[in-house]
């Protein structure tokens, strides 16, 4: 059984463009990488029942979610020939227009990172116990549900 340390994917609040830039910059020493594919999930100001979503307040069953992310990461590394992989998800309030998910994969050739990022995003949506409260401008809310 794998004894790798379980990483914490969660960050408090939105994921900033600066964090993304720093993460990209860190990969410039890895000169065997030929392609990166980055997915960013952004909170939408959806209209639901005549009200606009102002923010999503994320919560998670953190231990299980980190374990799920670990399993997704291991699965992706075994399915695709990747050089690097990074996953971050927000907790707490993320306003409409801000970023709540950052999935970043790198590989020698482009096909692998394209396939991997897509796989990881679908797996996160289906299998990570993360919950989202869509908060309206009048501070009422509904609970989001992934399709």
């Amino acid at each position, binding site marked *: 059984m794998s004894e790798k340390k379980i990483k914490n994917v969660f960050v408090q609040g939105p994921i900033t463009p600066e964090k993304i830039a720093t993460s990209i910059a860190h990969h410039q020493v890895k000169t065997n990488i030929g392609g990166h594919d980055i997915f960013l*999930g952004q909170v939408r100001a959806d209209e639901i029942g005549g009200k606009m979503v102002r923010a*999503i307040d*994320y*919560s*998670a*069953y953190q*231990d*299980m*979610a980190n*374990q799920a992310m670990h399993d997704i990461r291991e699965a992706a590394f075994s399915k695709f020939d990747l050089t690097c992989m990074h996953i971050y*998800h927000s907790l707490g309030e993320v306003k409409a227009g801000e970023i*709540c*998910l950052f999935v970043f994969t790198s590989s020698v050739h482009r096909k692998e990172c394209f396939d991997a990022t897509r796989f990881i*995003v679908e797996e*996160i*949506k*289906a*299998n*990570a*116990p*993360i*919950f*989202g*409260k869509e908060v309206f401008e009048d501070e009422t809310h509904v*609970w*989001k*549900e*992934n399709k």
Partner: protein
Amino acid sequence: MKLNVKYFGLIAEWMGRSEEQIDLWENSIAALRQQLETNCRRLSNITYQVAVNQKIASEELELSENDEVAILPPFAGG
């Protein structure tokens, strides 16, 4: 048997708490679901999953007193 149960998201909101100890008359997931839905009728109207020791439990799993049990509403990650 006594079980410590965690609630999340919508379900925590409905339950008015994020954790509680419940007394279960049988160590099956079905018994757990029935007891939860008796305490909170609205639960029977949604699809929720039961996680045991941080894995989604099959309906056939037998519960033990030290299990970490969590009741999970639909996921919304990403």
